[in-house]
């Protein structure tokens, strides 16, 4: 049990995919323009991560080593397609705002990376813990970044207007340039925090 908790907590901070491992960057920069988008992307990615880790951990002995990467990618692409159609059918507005970045979950190095590094070598229950931890770690950074960008860029958070009309929004924040800079500052700040702790 202790092992499971450790597996889970790993993804949240110590090996946080975005801040520490620096993978899964594309969606991090592109869909964090509003908090709703950041949260939706985080959850969609987590779903694909958890489902693929479960499947791959279950059938890991059946996949010959030489074709493991193409097999993983095929499985991941299948779950992503499922997620895409599911969102389009039941959450069309979110599907429209995330548009091209849902299919890009297929090449999110986080998902493929965890199959390689963890699911292919560990039992199912541990893979689930790892996937949930990593998924949450990914999601919280996305949400934090998008709250930052939405607040400064539009004065709102999750669509709720927080800053009144006195605030002149920094449009740059919701544009690509603002994304790069915000993430750079965020990681810089995190570096300072971890160097003080360790």
């Amino acid at each position, binding site marked *: 049990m202790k092992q499971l908790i450790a597996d889970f907590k790993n993804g949240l901070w110590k090996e946080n995919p975005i801040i520490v491992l620096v993978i899964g960057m594309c969606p991090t920069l592109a869909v964090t*323009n509003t908090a709703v988008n950041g949260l939706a992307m985080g959850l969609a990615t987590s779903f694909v991560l958890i489902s693929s880790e479960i499947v791959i951990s279950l059938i890991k002995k*059946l*996949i*010959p080593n*030489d*074709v493991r990467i*193409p*097999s993983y990618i*095929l*499985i991941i*692409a*299948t779950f992503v*397609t*499922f997620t895409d*159609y*599911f969102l*389009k*059918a*039941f959450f*069309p507005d979110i599907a*429209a705002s995330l548009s091209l970045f849902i299919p890009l979950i297929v090449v999110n190095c986080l998902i493929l990376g965890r199959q390689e590094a963890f699911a292919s070598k560990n039992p199912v229950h541990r893979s689930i813990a790892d996937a949930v931890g990593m998924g949450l770690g990914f999601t919280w950074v996305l949400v934090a970044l998008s709250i930052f960008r939405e607040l400064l*860029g*539009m004065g709102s958070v999750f669509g709720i207007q927080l800053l009144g009309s006195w605030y002149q*929004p920094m*449009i740059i924040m*919701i*544009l690509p340039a603002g994304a790069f800079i915000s993430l750079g500052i965020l990681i810089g700040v995190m570096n300072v925090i971890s160097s003080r702790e360790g």
Partner: protein
Amino acid sequence: MNKNIGKLVMTLTIIGIISALSLAFVYEWTTPYIEKHAAKARESGIFEVVPEAESYEEVTKNGIKFYEGYKSGQRVGVALIEEGPGFQGMIKLMVGANPANGEIYGIKILEHEETPGLGANITTDSYKSNFEGKPFGEYDVIKRETSDPYQVEAIAGATISSEKVTRIVEDAVDKIQNAYGGGN
């Protein structure tokens, strides 16, 4: 070696088949919902741009789909979906017009990827009101307030988006004119 390749190919093929089959199933399951959403969006668009209409009929003329709005059996207007390049990506909008008096009722932006806070303001009532009551024709986009029916006031800081939308509206109006007459 031969046996090995066989196993590799087999594994991928099996995964491929399971994947394709399950996705075909997901597709069948979700497609009705997706189409329902598209139809709903289209419908609310039609009633928005042809305000008098109480029902509508889809008609094809010159290979183009028009939506004729009816009230008490009388045709009160025509709507058309048109798309074209915006400042960023494509803009899809709906134009509602009355060929009887050659005037535009109004427009509704259906899809766009314009810059939030700038070009995205093409969806605001204040920009859309530019097109309400406009006679069929071509319009100039200018950077100040105007009451000239052949002019469109650009959104501050988003001249290009404003122009792109105007072009698309002109194209739509052309098509309506060709199919239904109206205007000069």
